[in-house]
């Protein structure tokens, strides 16, 4: 184990030596991006979502979480229903590591 730790330290030190420019400064600043959803090509629910995106970011964020969770839940139950008809035992398994 001690030997392994020694090798690990050499490995990390080697990477540090090989990449000296890691400590050099001088990157570019990030740019801010403002995006507006195009509501001209969509109708119905999609238009509502696009409008909400443009006008109320908080409401849009809440909708994004609620709809994602709801859609995930619906698909999960649907797939569970389909899989239960496959004839497989989907309620037990053996834990064997090796």
């Amino acid at each position, binding site marked *: 184990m001690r030997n392994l730790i020694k090798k*690990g330290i050499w490995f*990390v030190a080697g*990477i540090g030596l090989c*990449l000296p*420019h*890691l400590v*050099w*400064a*001088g*990157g*570019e600043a*990030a740019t801010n*991006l403002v*995006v507006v*959803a*195009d*509501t001209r*090509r*969509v109708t119905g629910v*999609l*238009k509502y*979502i*696009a409008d909400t*995106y443009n006008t109320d*970011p*908080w409401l*849009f*964020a*809440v*909708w*994004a*979480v609620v*709809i*994602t*969770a709801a*859609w*995930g*839940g619906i*698909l*999960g*139950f*649907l*797939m*569970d229903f389909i*899989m239960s008809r*496959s*004839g*497989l*035992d*989907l*309620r*037990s*398994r053996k*834990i*064997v*590591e*090796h």
Partner: protein
Amino acid sequence: MYMPIAGVDIFWPGLVLIGFSVGVIGGFFGMGGAWMVTPGLNILGFPMAFAIGTDMAHIAGKSMISTMRHAKFGNVDYKLGLFMVFGTFLGIECGAQLVMYLERLGRIDTVVRYVYVLFLALIAFMVFYDYAKAVKKKKAGVAEGERGTEGITWYKTFHKLNIPPMVHFKNAGFTCSAWLPAGVSFLTGVFAGFLGIGGGLFRMPALVYLIGCPTHIAVGTDLFEVMISGLYGAFTFSLKGRIELVAVFVMLTGAAIGAQIGTVATKYAKGYGIRIAFGIAVICCMISIILKQFGFSNSSAVMILSTIGLMCVYITAIMFKGAAAELREKKAAKQAGHPLS
């Protein structure tokens, strides 16, 4: 299909395919799979800023589907997952602060990539070292406990830490100090926040090697945590306006099918089978990052897509082979007049 927020037309079957593939791989390894989805979305034509946010929401929904299936197998330890969620969030925030600090110094992208590669190398080394050790022990006839022969057993040392409160995790089947999962999740959270990923890539091996979860429980519990952190990520990215909801729905439809295949495949795979495949995926991910760092973006994308494709085929084969054997066994038992439940 038109994406109103990102303002681009996207080839929708491509989205279904990405969702399906990541569903298969994520359900099998117990991770979100951001490292696979983000470049995939980028290739399909999403701007990078949207690819990350969209990926985050998709991961939350996909992990929910996988968690539901894993829970039926008893692979999810909710108590352990909840203990770890708080450490993860705190860690992610600290990691994000570290990134902002480094951003002021400059060259953040390079630093992040090198740290990422270093940790992936360590994880891959750990996985294969563990396997080699387990094989050696097995050959020597050493069998340890209910789980069979194990290579690395660091968790046994950590379980000896007697710092109150001590907590019993029923599904995972061990008792340890509450500080162990909290501390480990904090550390993995710091890495996740620093690298801008969900963290499943680090948390899954940490659950196995440091906390002592059986591989199957580690996969299920990690997915539960990915689901919660994914929803949080979806919320924050939505607030920043970097999410394309239409793409999330389309991808989730593919993921729903893929997640079933990946999750059920864990039933027919041995713990070390999952660990080794995970190690290979980690190595491929590492190579793709190295290629990207040196300007070979196309090769990097090819590497990731090939890994996804091959892993999908491998996992799907395990699932169908195992399922066919189980059904044959049931049929034979029924014919013999001893139906299996």
